[in-house]
């Protein structure tokens, strides 16, 4: 659309109008996303629950993500060990590899890597599925058949992601630490028993819990972004593709932003 405010002199957009409109659009979007999130959370936390749908989503979101999460975690753990060894070497501090690996994985990387991988696999998948349902009138059909899409579609995905992400992160933690151990023992000549003892001694419940709480939040973000973008997808294959892309980028950025905010929070309260 080209009205007077966008094209002033010589067809260049007026920066003020452009910024103003962008800001308004952003606030509108945040408002809509907040309302959508609120309604989804409310449907997820109050009965009646659709247990059949919930179980289906737990399998789809949790179980089928195991390979990608496991593979990502082992490589991140291995690379982390290698880099800490190289860095620590400069101060003669290479013996701290097991400590820093287990801390980095449990507090930070296990959750963020899982969150980012699922922003790709799960968020885009949800957005494409819901988007396809939207453009083929299946969401309208749900409503006419007295099924609320928030209860039938969005809440089960939200709950399934919030419940399974911590489990996936726990698995990522274990496999990530194992990745670090593998590299340390087989490439960096660490003694296996000492490495494991150092890891176990340094590991605290707090560090693990920090990662798991992050995981719950990431799970919510991942499901919400997929459902939200899918539900407002416009007609046609390009509309659905766009919804999938937008949801994935949005979820990835929000996972990283939430990670920073949560890290700050946990440091502030001293755990």
């Amino acid at each position: 659309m080209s009205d007077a405010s966008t094209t002033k002199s010589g067809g260049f957009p007026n920066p003020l109008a452009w910024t103003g409109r962008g800001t308004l659009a952003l606030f509108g979007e945040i408002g809509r996303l907040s309302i959508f999130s609120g309604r989804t959370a409310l449907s997820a936390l109050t009965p009646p629950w659709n247990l059949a749908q919930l179980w289906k989503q737990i399998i789809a979101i949790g179980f089928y993500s195991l390979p990608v999460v496991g593979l990502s975690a082992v490589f991140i753990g291995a690379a982390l060990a290698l880099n800490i060894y190289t860095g620590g070497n400069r101060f003669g501090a290479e013996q701290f590899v097991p400590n820093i690996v287990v801390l980095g994985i449990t507090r930070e990387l296990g959750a963020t890597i899982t969150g980012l991988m699922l922003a790709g696999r799960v968020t885009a998948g949800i957005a494409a599925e819901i988007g396809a349902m939207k453009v083929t009138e299946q969401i309208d059909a749900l409503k006419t058949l007295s099924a609320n899409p928030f209860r039938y579609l969005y809440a089960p995905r939200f709950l399934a992601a919030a419940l399974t992400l911590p489990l996936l992160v726990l698995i990522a933690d274990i496999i990530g630490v194992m990745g670090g151990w593998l590299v340390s023992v087989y490439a960096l000549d660490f003694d296996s028993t000492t490495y494991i003892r150092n890891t176990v001694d340094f590991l605290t419940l707090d560090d693990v819990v920090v990662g798991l709480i992050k995981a719950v939040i990431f799970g919510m973000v991942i499901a919400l972004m997929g459902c939200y973008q899918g539900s407002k997808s416009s007609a046609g294959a390009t509309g659905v593709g766009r919804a999938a892309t937008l949801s994935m980028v949005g979820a990835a950025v929000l996972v990283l932003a939430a990670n920073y905010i949560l890290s700050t929070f946990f440091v502030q309260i001293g755990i």
Partner: protein
Amino acid sequence: MTQPILELKGVEKSFGSNHVLRGVDIDVAPGRSLVVLGGSGSGKSVMLKNALGLMTPDAGKILFDGQDVTNNQGKTREAMRSRIGMLFQSGALFDSLTVWENVAFRLLNADKMKRSDAKEQAIETLKKVRLGASVADLRPAEISGGMQKRVALARAIITKPDLIFFDEPTTGLDPITADAINDLILEQVKALGAAAVTITHDMASARKVADEIAMLFEGKIIWRGPASEIDRSGNDHVDQFVHGRADGPIQPSL
């Protein structure tokens, strides 16, 4: 005069600057079949979606069985929807469910019926649209377009509604399949004694199923009359539409 089962009064709906409905007035008597004609993009689907509460009109009123349901979200609207069947333009079958689960969707979800009972009813209803029990366990993607339409019809009639909406029921079907669908619609609507609102641009279909015909043009109902008078409407727009001519008061939307 009996009270209409559905009444639209001055319904308006815009999308941005696109003023689609500009004051639609129409009513349907119980047990009668109304066909609304209109070109592609004239707002026929938007009209149905407003009537169903899938969209909220910018202005005007929607009455169902005498009750104002325009802005009603809660129990009244659910009560209304449980008495309405809808056949979507695209069928809108749930592709993650089997054929019988689609047909029995309302029974399984809103009505919490036992699966075995629901399946029995679904198979009964599939029989009414001439589909055998063998398709019950297939997925919508595994059956033909004409069969999908029949499954969608079965889903719309299983709860014996008082009013059924048909959004272009024959679009995208070959003439023979289309005629078979028209026959089924006619037969099932009569069997239920339900009122029907069919929107279409298919004249053969309109002549077959209509008691009354109305025409939607530029956001308003510009003509309405008994189906038998469609050829003597005295309205240029209707004549052009009935005879499918490109030249006339209606500009083709290209």
